[in-house]
């Protein structure tokens, strides 16, 4: 009961501000609505008991990536509203395609619910007062089975670091 109230609260915020995000003309307003979407998604992670993911969503996505976005918007004067796409056909095609994909996936999910023996219910929490510490659980996965992807992630970060600096630096002194 309480769980579903919290879920619908966060899900409602996420969807409404996502819609607002893609419809605002001002890029900073879009960024603000993306921030609320991301925060609501963090709430959903928390509701799914992924505590560490909740906090890394806030630290990395909201506190990191979104700051970067707003920086770029400020640096390059994108805050002036831009004209929308002139041809409205593209918009209608986009909507149509999205609706078709959504309908298809929705039907699949809906019928998966009806398959007997697979209620697809999230197992109820053990009514213990104390949950297993999520950070430690995640760390065991991260440094156990998924050690190699973890090391590869550092290579990815290295590439991103180098790439972004090369891109953003001026060519004059290179």
């Amino acid at each position, binding site marked *: 009961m309480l769980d579903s109230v919290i879920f619908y609260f966060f899900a409602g915020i996420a969807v409404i501000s996502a819609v607002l995000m893609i419809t605002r003309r001002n890029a900073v307003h879009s960024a603000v609505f993306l921030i609320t979407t991301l925060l609501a998604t963090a709430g*959903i992670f928390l509701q799914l008991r*992924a505590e560490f993911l909740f906090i890394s969503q806030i630290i*990395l996505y909201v506190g990191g990536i979104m700051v*970067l976005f707003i920086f*770029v918007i400020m640096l390059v004067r994108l805050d002036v509203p*831009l004209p929308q796409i002139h041809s409205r056909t593209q918009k209608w095609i986009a909507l149509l*395609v999205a609706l078709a994909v959504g309908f298809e996936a929705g039907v699949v999910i809906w019928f998966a619910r009806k398959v007997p023996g697979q209620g697809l219910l999230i197992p109820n929490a053990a009514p213990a007062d104390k949950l297993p510490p999520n950070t430690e659980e995640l760390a065991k996965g991260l440094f156990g089975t998924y050690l190699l992807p973890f090391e590869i992630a550092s290579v990815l970060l290295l590439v991103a670091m180098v790439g972004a600096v090369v891109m953003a630096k001026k060519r004059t002194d290179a």
Partner: protein
Amino acid sequence: MMPIGHYLFLSLALFLIGAIGVITRRNVLIVLMSIELILNAVNINLVAFSRYFGDVAGQVFALFIIAAAAAEAAVGLGIIIAFLRNRETVLADEMDLLKW
């Protein structure tokens, strides 16, 4: 006890909104933001299934996706800045140097 379908529908909705944003918006920055939204929708799925199967792998991969999103944002915005320096535009349909 929430059915997992709820999470899947939420994720689907966010994914589609993100996809519509990618297709219809002209401003490259909002296109990038929509891509972040799509990645986020994927994360919801991963975490929901991680909870459903009681396996932490989904969460680990969601963390990797966030790391990849950070790298993507850094490089993507770097490209936009480099592009701005040369072409003075952020409109996706004016980025047509490769168009023949």
